[in-house]
């Protein structure tokens, strides 16, 4: 175990060798601040470029060298929303929203009681159950894709957004169970005992005692499930066609170049990413908790 995990970080430790030493000198701090800014700007450049290009005309977007100060226009957005092609992105966006919200709600509904049975009033061998959930996440989804497709075809549910929402629920449920469990494990036992003494039944305990305490955890779980559902491409591409097409599937229409269309591509990429960008920025700290399955608080 140690030999494998040591491989990655070795170059990192080497490059930082001399660095921490000037730590306590103010000049060293300035140098590190400058490096941090440069790295941050470098990582942000593709996004800044995407935003800027989306507000340029197609002709200005396709110059070499790039024309940074070209006049701004909404032409790219008008084109994306179907000004000349007539193909509106609104139905795919609405489909994505439906699949993401429905699956997130289902995930919460299923994972919340399950997390209770894995932490507060645990079943026998609850660790085995927990690891079973995690192990399902390690199996590549692509290997289960064909049976899912054949099933959808046989029950005439291909191109149906609700079926997609059900599969997104299965996709996110293991992550949600892990996250919720880590949050529920911190609920003080006395609170629950008092509630049980009062003769409250399980749905009431969950709703009135546990839920208010783990609200931040529920928020983090929802955020992660929403983002993963919104981003998903493989299942959506195989299971949907024209009616239930989601936003990422709509975006694959831009894979092959179509003459001058850079501003339109950038506008499309930005619009589709906007819900995730907003949700993610609004809940930066939740993001960390969620991504680490609740292990990092």
């Amino acid at each position, binding site marked *: 175990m140690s030999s494998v995990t040591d491989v990655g970080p070795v170059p990192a430790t080497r490059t930082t060798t001399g660095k921490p030493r000037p730590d306590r000198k103010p000049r060293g701090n300035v140098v590190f601040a400058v490096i941090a800014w440069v790295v941050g700007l470098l990582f942000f450049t593709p996004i800044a470029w995407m935003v800027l290009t989306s507000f340029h005309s197609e002709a200005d977007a396709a110059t070499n060298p790039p024309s940074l100060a070209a006049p701004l226009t909404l032409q790219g957005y008008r084109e994306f929303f179907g000004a000349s092609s007539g193909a509106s992105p609104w139905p795919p966006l609405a489909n994505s929203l439906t699949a993401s919200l429905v699956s997130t709600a289902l995930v919460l509904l299923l994972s919340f009681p399950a997390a209770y049975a894995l932490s507060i009033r645990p079943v026998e061998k609850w660790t085995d159950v927990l690891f079973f959930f995690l192990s399902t996440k390690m199996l590549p989804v692509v290997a289960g*894709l064909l049976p899912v497709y054949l099933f959808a075809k046989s029950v005439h549910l291909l191109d149906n957004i609700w079926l997609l929402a059900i599969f997104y629920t299965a996709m996110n449920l293991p992550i949600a169970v892990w996250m919720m469990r880590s949050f529920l494990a911190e609920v003080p036992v006395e609170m629950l005992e008092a509630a049980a003494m009062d003769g409250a039944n399980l749905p009431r305990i969950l709703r009135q005692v546990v839920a208010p305490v783990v609200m931040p955890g529920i928020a983090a779980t929802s955020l992660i499930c929403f983002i993963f559902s919104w981003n998903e491409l493989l299942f959506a591409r195989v299971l949907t066609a024209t009616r239930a097409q989601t936003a990422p599937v709509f975006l694959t229409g831009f894979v092959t170049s179509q003459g001058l269309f850079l501003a339109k591509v950038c506008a499309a990429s930005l619009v589709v990413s906007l819900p995730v960008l907003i949700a993610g920025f609004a809940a930066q700290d939740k993001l960390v908790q969620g991504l680490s399955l609740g292990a990092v608080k």
Partner: protein
Amino acid sequence: MSVAVGSTTRPAGSRDQKAQQRSDARSRRVPLLPALVFTIILTQLPFVVTLVISFMNWNAYYPEERGFAGISNFVRVFTDEAMRHSVWVTIVLTATVVIVSLVLGMLIALLLDRKFRGRAAVRTMMIAPFLVVPVAAALVWKHALFNPEYGLFNGVITAVWNLFGMSNPPQPDWISLAPLVSIEMALIWQWTPFMMLILLAGLQGRPLDVIEAASIDGASGWQIFRYMTFPHLRQYLELGGLLGSIYVVQTFDAVFVITSGGLGTANLPFIIYQTFYNAQDYGRASAAGVVVVVGTIAIATFALRTVSTLFREEGGR
């Protein structure tokens, strides 16, 4: 019946106790069952079907030839050059993206762990790449950055060349020149923020008083990093590596968008998708799926052991 009643009259107390235990265990299981049953039906059942189809001769283009195929699908998977190459691509892609993102993520987390002017702004800028929808990110990299005629990379090269009054700037076609590296770059750009976030959280959970004491005792910055920060970060590195591997090994979007699986960049998820969706060869796609699952189980067993150590430490606290 009567016999049974007679024989159980005496140990009535213990029977009640047992019944109570059983009903207690049952009531504990009830809240778990919906999620468990749902997961088993939707994630385990498909794999069983895949396993069955992998032994069948089934191509949707030739429906009349459907039947038992023995191990011929598996033989074709292992003898097929493209399939074997995709295994290699998957390993290289996953290892490169996870390791480079971890190293970069750690360096950036160390930078952001210090106080400096605008730290929150830099942190926000760093997170942004992870919040771009993967398909959109791949589109932007393909068309707006890598494009040889009007992409940003070649545009910057031209601008720099013009600045120094030189003519004929090099204008490489990035994707044709290094297709797999192009995909890896786009993925590393998206996954470095993920690693950074986990490692930054780890760094901020360090016991600062101990580190302060060490530095007062004359420990150098390097010594503090090597003997205090790094051992503390290790479990976060393992967590980031494990989660990153789970997600990156399944990469489909970036391959589909940037190269469409061409130029030798088809990884296993892409090639299985292609075999099933385009070639409609259900038998062979399933056999490849089974091979992937077996390979993943081998890796996952190791990975799960890592997590369970982490998990036990967490529980012990």
